[in-house]
């Protein structure tokens, strides 16, 4: 890299997205590096201030719970974008489509099918039955075209060799797409000359694609389907995203009390009376959807909603009960499910995972707990994890005890040395660990939005990228192949 930005930059033995082990800049980063090299540190600092002002003005914030002051924070976007070359992306895309297709088939089979994968012993029945996400109330609720994971967020990491692996599937209410879109807007405003030098595939058709997918799964009787976004309300940490998506799609953003069910038909209350609703893109967790069937203390949901869905009068997306398929123990069976339902070899490998109810695996894990990561099967967002190498003896002992008490509740994985990416720290670049959450839509066809949310652990050495725990993000550039348009056909 020309200029002083990259002077003394050291990958420190990690897989670095930008710099090859021999210290040269990888081919797909060269143009970016050249352009960035023309900026002085002062100029970059000025652009950072521009970025902050833009995010604050637009009110792009998330809510941090449990802090009185500074309720809303901006989600920091690092100015140095991540670049993915066209061929690399094509492989990721194919792997994601394959995985989500299999997961949709599996879920539909479980809730309205003959449970073939269980019957044929691909996944043990007791494992399904014991999953928190397996939802009795979802039985018999049809989803047109089996698109149960209408929006899936599949978290990918790259290991020490640069191999992309699936870290976890988010099939319930994956969030983050609004940052993908807003990051892109911010990049094109703050560093237009850098962005303009590349042929980057666009992401701003997401709203149109999501709306098309939602209309595609409307009940057959709905001629011109009315789609709404259902939010828990303005105090939810992801409210910004809910409002953002409703606006992008041009549909109503409703809260539970705005909806009413009469004779198994869902209506919203409007200034002109009641209006029928056909598809609900809900951003409320399963438990809170319907106090009649699920949590009785929920004030966020709509009484009678599940019965209306079961009657086929409304489609709920994502479908109820998806949690069983992103259970972290069931995750270990996804490669087998791909082979079973699609008769294909999985294109994207899992991270090596140990199932702790198996005595042999458990004993091996307990012996080398200090080398492994342990995760609770039903949690997300990086909560309740053990990172063996950085844990103290007390913590290790505590997890040993918990695993022995309830081996089904945890899984263990090898530590993945997440790849690193140059990230602006003060006036220079340092390597920081990153992951990638691409978004997959199951509509008329299964579609992956180019790129996704690259999250970056801003704290030095940290492997935790979650926004609630000091993470930031990067704009993610998927380069168009030669002759390929950067925007999709209308």
């Amino acid at each position, binding site marked *: 890299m020309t200029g002083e930005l990259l002077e003394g930059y050291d990958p420190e033995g990690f897989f670095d997205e930008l710099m090859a082990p021999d210290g040269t800049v990888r081919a797909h980063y060269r143009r970016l590096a050249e352009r960035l090299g023309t900026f002085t540190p002062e100029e970059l600092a000025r652009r950072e201030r521009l970025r902050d002002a833009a995010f604050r003005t*637009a009110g792009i914030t998330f809510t941090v719970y449990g802090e009185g002051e500074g309720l809303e924070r901006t989600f920091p976007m690092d100015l140095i974008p991540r670049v993915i070359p066209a061929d690399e992306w094509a492989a990721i895309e194919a792997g994601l489509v394959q995985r989500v297709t299999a997961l949709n088939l599996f879920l539909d089979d479980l809730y309205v099918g003959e449970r073939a994968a269980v019957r044929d012993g691909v996944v043990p029945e007791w494992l399904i039955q014991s999953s928190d996400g397996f939802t009795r109330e979802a039985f018999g609720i049809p989803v047109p075209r089996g698109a149960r994971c209408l929006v899936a967020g599949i978290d990918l990491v790259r290991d020490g060799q640069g191999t992309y692996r699936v870290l976890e599937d988010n099939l319930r209410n994956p969030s983050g797409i609004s940052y993908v879109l807003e990051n892109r807007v911010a990049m094109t405003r703050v560093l237009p000359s850098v962005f303009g030098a590349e042929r980057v595939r666009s992401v701003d058709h997401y709203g149109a694609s999501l709306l098309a997918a939602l209309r595609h799964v409307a009940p057959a009787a709905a001629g011109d389907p009315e789609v709404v976004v259902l939010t828990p309300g303005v105090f939810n940490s992801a409210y910004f995203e809910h409002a953002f998506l409703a606006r992008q799609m041009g549909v109503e953003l409703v809260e539970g009390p705005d909806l009413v069910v009469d004779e198994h038909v869902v209506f919203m209350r409007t200034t002109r009376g009641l209006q029928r609703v056909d598809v609900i893109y809900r951003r409320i967790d399963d438990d809170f959807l319907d106090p009649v069937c699920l949590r009785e203390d929920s004030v966020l949901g709509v009484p009678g909603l599940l019965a209306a869905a079961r009657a086929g009068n409304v489609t709920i997306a994502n479908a109820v009960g998806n949690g069983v398929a992103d259970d972290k123990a069931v995750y270990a069976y996804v490669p087998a499910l791909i082979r079973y339902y699609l008769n294909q070899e999985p294109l994207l490998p899992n991270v090596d995972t140990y199932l702790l109810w198996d005595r042999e695996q458990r004993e091996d894990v307990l012996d080398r707990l200090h080398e492994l990561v342990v995760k609770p099967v039903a949690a997300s967002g990086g909560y309740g994890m053990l990172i063996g190498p950085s844990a103290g003896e007390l913590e290790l002992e505590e997890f040993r005890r918990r695993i022995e008490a309830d081996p089904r509740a945890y899984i263990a994985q090898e530590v993945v040395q997440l790849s690193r990416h140059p990230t602006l720290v003060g006036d220079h670049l340092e390597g920081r660990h990153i992951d990638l959450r691409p978004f997959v839509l199951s509509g008329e066809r299964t579609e992956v939005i180019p790129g996704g949310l690259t999250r970056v652990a801003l704290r030095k050495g940290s492997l935790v990228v979650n926004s609630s725990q000091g993470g930031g993000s990067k704009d993610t550039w998927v380069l168009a192949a030669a002759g390929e348009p950067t925007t999709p056909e209308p």
Partner: protein
Amino acid sequence: MLARHAEMIFWCGRYLERAEDTARVLDVTYHGLLESPPAEARRSWLELLAVLGLAEEFLAKHDEVNARTVSEFLVLDATNPGAIVSAVGLARENARGVRELLSSEFWEAVNTFHLELHARDLRVDLAQQAYELYGLVRRRCQTVSGVASETMPRDDGWRFLMLGWMLERAEMMCRLLNVRFGEVAAAGELASFPILLGVLRSASAAEAYRKVYGAALDPGHIVEYLMLAPNFPRSLLYCLRQAEKDLLRIGAPDDLSRPQRIIGRLRAELEFCDVQDLLDAGLHAELDRIQQRVREAAEALALQYFRNVTVDLHAVDFRPAG
């Protein structure tokens, strides 16, 4: 549109207008009192608080009634829901709840205004340059309304926003006139030139007034202009006409809603009355009565459009299930 959204958008408009008008009445009072003895100043400040309906709340907190305590209470006291910072904050909260119905530009203008107020040391601003602070609030509110008018489609969302704006403005115009005029006109006193000019300026009406009546300032003419001018956008009559028009478009074509009846009647009254009638009847009492009617219209509006929870489900036209 969703009943809840209509309500939030309506209140967004109301709070913005309230912030602007609070700045206006403060400005008039403050500058009208610069050379007054303390006793008279105290009386005027109390009158202002009474007109804003905030006298009790103020006296529960403060012993001293003077320019500093009252203007701080009305500008920066976040515990006072009628303070300018609170009104702008509430306008922003409501706008945040209906962001997807507003243009991005509108939201950004409201959000920036809110952030700017929080970034300033308002106590120092009030002590050193109250005039500029009031001017700033006014300009920011005008920016927001300009942005709204340039970027929002004329749909029901726009109409509820305008209704909030117009009903609050009508109410506040009654208050503004009451602050400096109710007593004066009733007693037949001649208000001083600076006070009369102040009233006009606070309504941004000084230049428009001169075009109609010339340079001489006459209290009767000023009342006539601010209440009955059909073409001045802050006059009572104008606000009511505008509100009536928006109500007509929101409502069902063959039906007159209760808010339409209330507003229409009041509009007709002002449209065909002579300013002398108002003065003879006692301006103070007339203003109170009009303000009360506007309030009733807002309540009827809320019942009709925001709380339609008792709509008969079976009377609604919808496609057959399944």
